[in-house]
């Protein structure tokens, strides 16, 4: 199955793109996808604490992905 990952801020800059299209196995969780995209977190390149969103709503790390999902890893927000 297929998911779209949207990237923002330092995550976008780090990958050099704002979206990724990926094939994932059924049953893949958000956390599993994170481990695949960020196998080893280099100091400074990815914030220590990410939140997760699927289809524009926050989810927990163990949320299972569905075909067609839009997934976002949310670095610490700093609006205002």
């Amino acid at each position, binding site marked *: 199955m297929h998911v779209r990952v949207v990237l923002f*801020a330092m995550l976008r800059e780090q990958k050099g793109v704002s979206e990724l299209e990926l094939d994932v196995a059924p049953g893949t969780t958000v956390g599993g996808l994170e481990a695949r995209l960020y196998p080893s977190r280099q100091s400074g390149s990815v914030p220590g604490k990410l939140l997760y969103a699927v289809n524009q*709503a926050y989810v927990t790390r163990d949320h299972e992905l569905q075909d067609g999902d839009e997934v*976002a890893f949310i670095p610490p*927000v*700093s*609006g*205002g």
Partner: protein
Amino acid sequence: MVEITEEPIDIGAVIASVRYSGGGAVVTFLGTVRDNDEAGEVIALEYEAYAEMAVAQMRGIRAEIETRWGIDHVAIVHRVGRREVGEVSVVIAVASPHRLQAFDACRFAIDRIKEIVPIWKKELYPHGSQWKQA
């Protein structure tokens, strides 16, 4: 009114959108770009938003305010893109019959924006830049 925009925010229009005949108190918060931060001199900020989700989260904040205070006259507009020192980045307006609730709800709104709305800012310094982390 709940918006993410690249355009200048019309403060008067945001305030006007919450006013009603029973709302004797209107509290407004403007966030503007400061010329300094912990890291020193700031020359500009670059705001980036996950726009659709940011709007959804801001609507959620409005719903929280309605639940907590029964206030349903709340507007939130956040501007994104590169913002120079002194420019307005966010405008929140809250109208309610009594002022204490309007102050509390407006303060809650800006606090929550900084907690849950997917917007990020990069601080541009005279030399270098950095994504602000919280």
